[in-house]
């Protein structure tokens, strides 16, 4: 007990000040949550309708080469995604209502795949028109079908480059590196790549592909540039996953007669695979989100002749670039709606990607906080 006379009053004042500060901090945190949650909700609600509502009438074909395949794939993704969401809840409800009822093992997965296949076969013309139609420069009613295709294709192309390069470099550094200087150079190179502003990648890609090689805008150039962009993250997380593999397993393999290379590929890599996969999925998320490097390497155009083409040396606009283009250079009268729809599709793609990455990361390898430390370091 304090002997000072004013102690209770002092404590009361301190409590009030503390309470005020607490309230202020709570308010701050709350407003931040409202801002970001509000942004997400606004994006989904404003654009979600247009982008996601199944159409009652069948949409006619636009008459572009490759459109059938594209519609099929898109329908499979769309109905599969819808089914997985609804079925999961349904299964949960059923299990809670009748706990004694035991469903076969892979009910959920098979049901989802079944719905996806059925939808792709019979209902692919009933997809929302926004996802099916070509964009329009000057008229209302444009869609983002080719942009979705380009975004996903670019993600595949870019991962095809990032995977061998990143995994190779990570494996080398984690398990096979001999010389100090080379590893140091590699680490410095990765640190440098991580600190470059994204526009520098765009400039370099523009210089090399468009100016020097006269190759014009190409998805290939965009994929290479994005692969460079993603390397620091992928190598960092992959290296951490590989290092986390218990030494005993590798030693056991080596003791049984496997060579170091065999051990690396048959023991180390499979063990670290979930973490590596989560790194790749994160890099895919980054590909979805980048616009500046792509504007200068893959361009901002969609042509009827190559809208759904698998040729990687043609230019193509992705969703993020389309969002920028519609607001900066586009002349369509409904650009507010188109922007909202594009943003909604982007947000959904990213949410799904993030969710997949999180689930994969939890499966094995490094746990969440360590992965993020590598990500942002």
């Amino acid at each position, binding site marked *: 007990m304090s002997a000072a006379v004013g102690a209770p009053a002092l404590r009361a004042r301190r409590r009030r000040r503390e309470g005020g500060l607490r309230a202020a901090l709570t308010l701050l945190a709350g407003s931040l949550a409202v801002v970001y949650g509000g942004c997400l909700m606004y994006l989904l609600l404003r654009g979600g309708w247009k982008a996601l509502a199944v159409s*009652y009438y069948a949409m006619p074909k636009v008459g572009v080469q490759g459109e059938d395949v594209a519609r099929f794939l898109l329908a499979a993704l769309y109905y599969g995604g819808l089914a997985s969401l609804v079925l999961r809840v349904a299964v949960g409800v059923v299990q809670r209502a009748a706990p004694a009822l035991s469903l076969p093992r892979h009910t959920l997965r098979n049901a989802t795949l079944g719905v996806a296949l059925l939808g792709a076969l019979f209902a692919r013309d009933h997809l*929302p028109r926004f996802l099916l139609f070509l964009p329009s*420069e000057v008229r209302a009613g444009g869609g983002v079908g080719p942009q979705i295709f380009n975004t996903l294709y670019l993600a595949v192309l870019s991962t095809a480059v990032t995977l061998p390069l990143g995994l190779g470099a990570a494996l080398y550094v984690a398990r096979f590196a001999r010389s100090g200087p080379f590893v140091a150079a590699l680490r410095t190179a990765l640190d440098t790549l991580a600190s470059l502003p994204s526009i520098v990648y765009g400039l370099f890609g523009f210089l090399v592909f468009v100016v020097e090689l006269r190759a014009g805008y190409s998805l290939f150039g965009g994929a290479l540039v994005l692969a460079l962009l993603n390397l620091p993250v992928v190598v960092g997380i992959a290296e951490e996953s590989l290092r986390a593999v218990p030494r005993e397993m590798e030693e056991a393999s080596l003791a049984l007669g496997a060579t170091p290379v065999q051990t690396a590929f048959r023991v180390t890599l499979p063990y670290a695979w979930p973490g590596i996969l989560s790194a790749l999925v994160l890099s895919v998320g980054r590909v979805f989100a980048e616009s500046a490097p792509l504007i200068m390497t893959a*361009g901002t155009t969609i042509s009827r002749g190559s809208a759904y083409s698998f040729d990687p040396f043609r230019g193509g606009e992705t969703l993020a670039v389309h969002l920028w283009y519609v607001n900066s250079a586009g002349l369509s009268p409904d650009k507010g709606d188109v922007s909202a729809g594009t943003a909604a599709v982007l947000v959904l793609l990213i949410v799904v990607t993030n969710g997949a990455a999180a689930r994969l990361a939890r499966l094995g390898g490094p746990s969440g906080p360590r992965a993020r430390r590598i990500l942002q370091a």
Partner: protein
Amino acid sequence: MRFAALIAVALLGCDRTPPPAPGELVDSVTSLSELGATRVRISGSSAQQPLVNAAKERFEAAHGGVSVEVSAGGSRKGLADVASGAVHIGASDLFAPPDLRGALVDHRVAVVGFAIMAHRGPYNDRVDALGVRELAAIFSGRVRDWRELGGDPQPIVVINRAPGSGTRTVVGQMLLGGEPFVEAKTEDNSGALVDKLRQSKGAISYLALSFTTPDVRVFPIRTERGAVEPTEANIVTGAYPLWAYEHMYTKGAPTGAVRLFLDYVLSPEFQERVLPSVRGFIPVTAMAVSKDED
């Protein structure tokens, strides 16, 4: 989770707007061009974009194997790109500069007029028209308030186009006589610029006539003949001074798919039926006056 699933179910079968009629979609592919899959690359003027896109949509529909890739960037970029070989056609509102003129072949595909557009506010209702000298003073920053032009006190907010824009260069040469523009906020995208003119009090800028809309004020220009409205009739006779040719420059004579495209754009079918339907453009043949320099 359950919330998301509910929304997902609610979205099923909810878009009951009927699909577009077959005529609204561009025609389906009728024939494959004998050239196979080729690309025609065009870049440059943003004022010319509506015209190029109208041509592109119809050309691609008629020639299934050819892709026309259009990007903007401004007239100067178009000229730079075609000179360096990065694109096949450079779309420009400007004549090619002297050092490039030898290598580039000029195809004049249309005439476009430029308008002085401003925010429609009560403060400039009394201003009927703006003379060339007044416009020069506005865009060079010497006059800073609508009050000095006969309206109510309201600061003039100049919005510039990008330095590479053909519109800016044409307006700069015809109104300012080479005097530099005031440094003000830049908006190169015509659509966004119209939005800004609609929203910002006191705003004034210059755009191609294709972008006029009733809720933004379009100022007639006061010349010796009085206040001249930017109409097609006035441009054709030369009464309205702000106009320019829409050039499609090629490096040397065009060949192959590029030649097919240019032939289509210069064909009577396009010039007489499609071009007049794209707002703001006039066929070159309709002009009563002409010019050889900017």
